[in-house]
């Protein structure tokens, strides 16, 4: 058991290293930060001084090692734009993002899972078809289209809600709705197919043949089994709590981590981008670890394998 998780945690660390490396390489290859920040008209000696100040004239492998050394010491660099520590910039944006993603996460679960279960239990019914059509729509319509559609209807036409900004709780409604609807659709589809798969299993028939009332067959025999694949999707969703709102924050001018990322990428503000990526990688990896723990909890067959590993 211990070894199993040691391997998992080792793999998680490796994933983070790879993500950070990838980000480092891509950002360094895609343009000169000095030019992006100071502009093409800046005199060459100013550019050279900027590069020297930020260590951009060192050999790339040196910059890379330097960067990792700093991360190991907990220093994530400073923003090239205003010189503040990158981590500070990112951390002060997190509450705004969580104010959208956490309620959205709760709504996704509260809407998606019951809808999926209901659709599976009433397969082929009118409600099943409605749920599935909505789910396919939610699945395929990109979030920026949905966001614009909601703005058009509720802000422009009806004038009920503001179209952007962060001044009151009313400003959060449309972004949260955009995030929730898409996620709930994904969750409904997965829950439905997981339930259908489980309901077709022989052990469900065994339970019915034993005289277990149908309601109890569903709650104590089907749901615990259907939870296993559903937890996987939930894990992905937890992983997107920090940076899953990039598009939505941009559309609704919501000052969260996602907006910060877009601005930082546009400006080649390396330290900030890398800091956000590191944070995202860590949330993803952590949520995957949690999912692994949950699997062990939900599925005794996996527990057994871990015991032998």
């Amino acid at each position, binding site marked *: 058991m211990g070894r199993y998780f040691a391997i998992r945690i080792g793999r998680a660390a490796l994933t983070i290293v790879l993500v950070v490396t990838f980000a480092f390489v891509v950002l360094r290859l895609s343009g000169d930060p000095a030019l992006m920040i100071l502009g093409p008209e800046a005199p060459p000696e100013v550019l050279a001084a900027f590069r020297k100040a930020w260590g951009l004239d060192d050999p790339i492998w040196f910059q890379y090692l330097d960067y990792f050394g700093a991360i190991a010491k907990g220093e994530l660099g400073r923003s090239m734009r205003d010189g503040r520590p990158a981590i500070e910039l990112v951390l002060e944006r997190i509450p705004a993002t969580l104010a959208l993603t956490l309620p959205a996460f709760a709504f996704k679960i509260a809407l998606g899972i019951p809808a999926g279960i209901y659709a599976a239990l009433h397969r082929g019914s009118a409600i099943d078809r409605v749920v599935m059509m909505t789910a396919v729509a939610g699945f395929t319509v990109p979030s920026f289209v949905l966001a614009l559609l909601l703005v058009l209807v509720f802000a422009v036409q009806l004038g009920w809600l503001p179209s952007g900004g962060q001044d009151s709780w009313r400003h959060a409604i449309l972004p949260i709705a955009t995030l929730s609807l898409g996620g709930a659709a994904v969750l409904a589809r997965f829950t439905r197919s997981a339930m259908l798969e489980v309901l077709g299993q*022989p052990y469900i*028939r*065994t*339970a019915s043949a*034993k*005289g277990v009332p149908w309601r109890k067959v569903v709650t104590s*025999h089907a749901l615990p089994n259907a939870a296993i694949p559903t937890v996987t999707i939930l894990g992905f969703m937890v992983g997107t709590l920090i940076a899953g709102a990039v598009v939505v924050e941009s559309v609704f001018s919501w000052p969260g981590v996602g907006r910060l990322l877009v601005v930082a990428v546009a400006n080649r503000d390396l330290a900030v981008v890398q800091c956000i990526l590191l944070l995202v990688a860590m949330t993803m990896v952590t949520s995957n670890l949690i999912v692994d723990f949950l699997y062990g909890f*939900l599925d005794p*067959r996996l527990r057994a394998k871990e015991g032998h590993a």
Partner: protein
Amino acid sequence: MPQLISIAGLSVAFSGVPVLRGVDLALQKGEALGLVGESGSGKSVTWLAALGLLPRHAQVSGSVRLDGREILGAPAPELDQVRGGRVAMIFQDPASALNPVLTIRKQLCEALALHRDLQGNAVKAEARRLLDLVGIPDAGRRLEAYPHEFSGGQIQRIMIAMALAGNPDLLIADEPTTALDATIQAQILELLSTVRRELGMAMVLISHDLGVVAENCDRVAVMYAGRIVEEAPSNQLFADPVHPYAQGLIGALPPLDGPRRRLTAIPGTVPDPAHMPSGCAFAPRCTLAAEPCGLSAPSLAPIADGRAVACIRAEASRRALLGIAAE
């Protein structure tokens, strides 16, 4: 002997395709009935339909009476009392028949809580006793184990224990040994006949293995394409099958004693349920088929005490078997 369960005119169709086409079958208290036939002949569907265990889109009609009380289409709470309490069922594939995420104790005690008036520790004690009864060693500790920690044979024993939990009057064993090794098979059948004898329980043994049925059942019903084509006491059916299909089945068995002989096979294949021939479903494969066979499906008619056959050529068939030139 009083009749325990009687099925009359039971028909099942899946999206308009008939798979069971009027089954009549009765079982007395304590009796062991074998149900044989090829896959798809409707052996399992008969009992799944009788207990209301088919998916909702199955169209079921006919009558199933348990102690004279109609249970087909009975309200759910009544059916839940019948299932496991009066009629228990065990299935073919032990690997997937138990819920993988629940302990054996949970699954066994669930059945006990549903059908027996037991409280607290008595439930667990009874669960342990049942596991002992079906021959699971170290029952107390094994109760906390999960299905994947048992072998196929052990799971089938646990399934039997679970079936016995409600003290049923009838046990439907749906190919209980098909997925098991030959030696384990014999042990499970032995266990089934022991508990049956001790508890005075009736049993339906569904199998395509004629040998298994011959050894374990008093009476045998042969099914073909959704109908019962012959019904007889086991010894008589094997010594003197009348329906050409039953003859074919038995002719395909190697004899244990006597001179070696060439095994016969039934030519052709089972008809597609969506395109059933008019008349007798076996006629296209039957060597004795005559013109009237294609006109209407023969009904199951008694030919002797405890024997019935659904074949208008029964007499000719019998004579052919005895080596008398037909007509």
